[in-house]
């Protein structure tokens, strides 16, 4: 039912990843372009995401929204997303419509049309999306935080862009962007699902994408190296009723050999009921209501985050100290073999359930190829997980989770009820009383 993925590069530079999964009569077709917000400059911040929208707005032979409508009409789904390093277009359709999807993707890669009228209408949509995002006070605060974190690096401003730039992007800007980045040599096509064979898919791709040579692979920004600045702390008052404390550390590129160890650390410390943060901050100390974490490892650099949401009567500094104490405990006390085994089992289970979805598989392969450099890394990671030792994991914690490089963001509700001060004070007095009682 499942076969190993195969790859093939066409003469025009287009790379195809193909994997047969015959358990359901559907096929996922994703196309990844190696361009994102990291390729932008002042004046056109947000153009990658803007262009993602324009790719649905018609070409020489396909009318506005026609791509999405044709996919809908056969019972399928079409979507897209923009990141710092890539823009991906995803389609899932019943298997008999594979050729149609390839034809549609080839058409908009080659013959997109951008007119002033459509640009202006879509600009309004993008501004609506921008404001929807910015109406989330936590998301907005995090965007500001990451700008400080990445400093002058191309990752500082994310795909959402800058409002003033979005308002000024022109038809010429779009044409220039399209011609530079949307070409076969800059694209990876991923096909996963109920296909007849890889050979059959290759023939179809050659039919639709052949004869189009958009030129060599374009170059991105020359210097993507990330200088880790010393850690800093930020505190903001936001229109959000739940205080949140976040700490973050510079993380390596997603393909870096330390990536697997960092993911293990994240699972040990923040994932599940039995994670260290949940045990310590939520259960034992009652400091937080919800804890979690994530490693955002992009193509060239990243950030490893931990956070806790707590009640307004709790002091943020106390929560921050508790988060940092758990990080320190990993570095000084290590990770147990039982924890390593748990992470292996959790990862294997997650991977297995992921395999049921062709769309998900296509996304994983595309990410591994375009962001990590090789689609085989998706499988290799599992092998590394099996062989990596607890000592290697702890070494990684000491390398990346150091207090000198720690950044911190504290979000407090703008509106604070005065009674909460008294509740917090009362709680602290009661806790002192309890501790004294236990000491007797």
């Amino acid at each position, binding site marked *: 039912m499942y076969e190993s993925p195969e790859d093939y590069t066409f003469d025009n530079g287009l790379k195809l990843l193909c994997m047969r999964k015959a358990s*359901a009569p559907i096929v996922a077709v994703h196309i990844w372009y190696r361009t994102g917000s990291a390729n932008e400059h002042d004046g056109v911040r947000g153009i990658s995401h803007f262009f993602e929208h324009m790719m649905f707005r018609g070409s020489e032979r396909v009318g506005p929204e026609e791509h999405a409508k044709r996919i809908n009409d056969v019972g399928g789904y079409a979507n897209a997303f923009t990141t710092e390093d890539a823009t991906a277009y995803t389609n899932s359709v019943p298997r008999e419509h594979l050729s149609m999807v390839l034809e549609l993707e080839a058409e908009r890669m080659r013959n997109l049309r951008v007119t002033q009228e459509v640009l202006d209408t879509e600009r*309004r949509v993008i501004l*609506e999306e921008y404001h929807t995002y910015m109406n989330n006070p936590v998301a907005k605060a995090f965007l500001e935080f990451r700008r400080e974190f990445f400093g002058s690096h191309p990752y500082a401003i994310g795909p959402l862009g800058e409002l003033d730039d979005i308002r000024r992007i022109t038809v010429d800007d779009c044409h220039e962007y399209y011609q530079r980045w949307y070409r076969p040599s800059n694209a990876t096509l991923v096909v996963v699902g109920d296909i007849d064979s890889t050979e059959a898919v290759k023939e179809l791709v050659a039919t639709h994408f052949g004869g189009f040579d958009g030129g060599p692979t374009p170059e991105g920004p020359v210097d993507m190296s990330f200088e880790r600045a010393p850690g800093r702390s930020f505190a903001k008052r936001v229109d959000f009723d*739940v205080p949140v404390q976040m700490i973050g550390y510079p993380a390596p590129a997603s393909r870096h050999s330390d990536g697997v160890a960092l993911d293990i650390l994240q699972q040990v410390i923040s994932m599940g009921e039995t994670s260290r943060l949940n045990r310590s901050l939520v259960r034992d100390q009652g400091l937080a209501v919800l804890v979690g974490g994530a490693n955002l490892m992009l193509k060239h650099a990243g950030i490893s985050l931990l956070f806790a949401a707590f009640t307004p009567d709790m002091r943020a500094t106390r929560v921050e100290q508790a988060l940092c104490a758990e990080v320190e405990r990993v570095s000084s006390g290590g990770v147990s073999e039982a924890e390593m085994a748990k992470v292996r089992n959790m990862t294997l289970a997650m991977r297995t359930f992921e395999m049921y979805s062709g769309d998900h598989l296509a996304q994983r392969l595309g990410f591994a190829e375009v962001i990590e450099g090789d689609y085989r890394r998706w499988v290799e990671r599992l092998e590394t997980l099996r062989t990596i030792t607890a000592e290697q994991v702890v070494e990684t914690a000491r390398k990346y989770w150091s207090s000198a490089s720690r950044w911190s963001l504290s979000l407090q509700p703008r509106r604070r009820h005065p009674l909460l001060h008294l509740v917090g004070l009362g709680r602290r007095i009661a806790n002192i009383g309890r501790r004294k009682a236990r000491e007797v």
Partner: protein
Amino acid sequence: MAALYRFPPMVEEDCPNGLHLMWVPDHELPAMTIGIQFPRGKLLDPHGFEGVTELAVELLQKGTAQRPPEQFSELLESRGCSLFADTAEEHILIGCRFLSSYAFEAIPLFWEMIVSPGLDLRELKRVKKEMLTSLDAEMSEPAGLASKHFHAQLFGSDHPAGRSPSRKSVRALSIETVRTLLERIVHPQGATVVVAGDFDLDKARTAWHSLFAAWDPGRTPYVSAPLQAAPRSTGIAMRLVNKGDLTQASLVVGHVVPGEQCEYRHEIGLANYILGGGNFSSRLMGEVRSRLGKTYGISSQLGRLRTFGDLMIATSTMNEQVGDMLEIILRVYRQFVQDGVTDDEVAKARSFATGSLAFQLEGIGHVVEKLLWLRLYDRDKSYIERYPQTIAGIQTQAVNHAIREYFTTDALAVTVVGNRRLIEPQVKGLGAVEYVDYRAAMP
């Protein structure tokens, strides 16, 4: 026409205690899922104790009478097992996913959780705190606030479908209210257990059939009368919920519709796809987003329970555009109701309905969900297996009949969450407006 779908071979049996078992072997991947569905849900929350079903389902997952919460979680998570739950208006589904190599540990643990819950007091306090924090976080989610207010407006805050958890109701919850609720919901009578995935059928039945069949809670099952709902008023009733810090407003427009038992349920579904359920293929998206650029997204959804449901047209837009947006939505909707739909639109809606079936059944997890859904509405598996033919047989005339019968402009609820100062002047001409502050208790 899409290929006919056939469920994988399975064994079904009824236990003397009223439990229905479904054994569904599938060897696609070395994984399994077990799920139990109870045909009772959040609509049973007593007045003043809204949130108790959600709390009870969360609490169920925190340990058993024999194993404290941390030990229980460790036993599951160390083996990569993960619990999941769905707490809906008329049903509860609780399940566990795991690698098949751990089946003989996971299934007994899961069953112990169901039949012998811990109901730990400290966990109750923790989960309550979590729920209160979620309610606080919801204050910053205008779309969620709009939906809550819309349902309160539509059904009335004295109707179970119009009520929702509040800080007051969650604080009122105790272990006694949870126990009472669980006694009503968690009973083998009417419940369905599905065991699906990579297992040997004979070995599984030998190992676990007696476990499931032996469950005797020692009490009679709770029987609740079916709920009904009717439009509360005629004309357009608007509620403007003031949240002054927003640059964008969230809007919901809609009315009561028939439930799942309606004989025209397919026609209603196709009509909704054309109106706003079909993404870029829908009339609302085509007009509001693609042609006018007024929003990032607009859709219409049907929330259907057994005997009634609601149509919700939901979107967001800048505060300054709310008046325009409402005018456009009402224009598109009136035209839809008055003129009906075309042959071409119905053909495309049918094509989506049958083509998308393959996605709804991709993977054993989706198959389990579908089997339980069929059970919930007393439907046979052939309902899905002949679905393409059923849809293919629906003509435009029938869809337009359903639109005339069940979609109306005569009794609409409109909810807007946004900046009152900017919005109020725009909506004055639309009819009576009720003003509420977003922090106030639900009227």
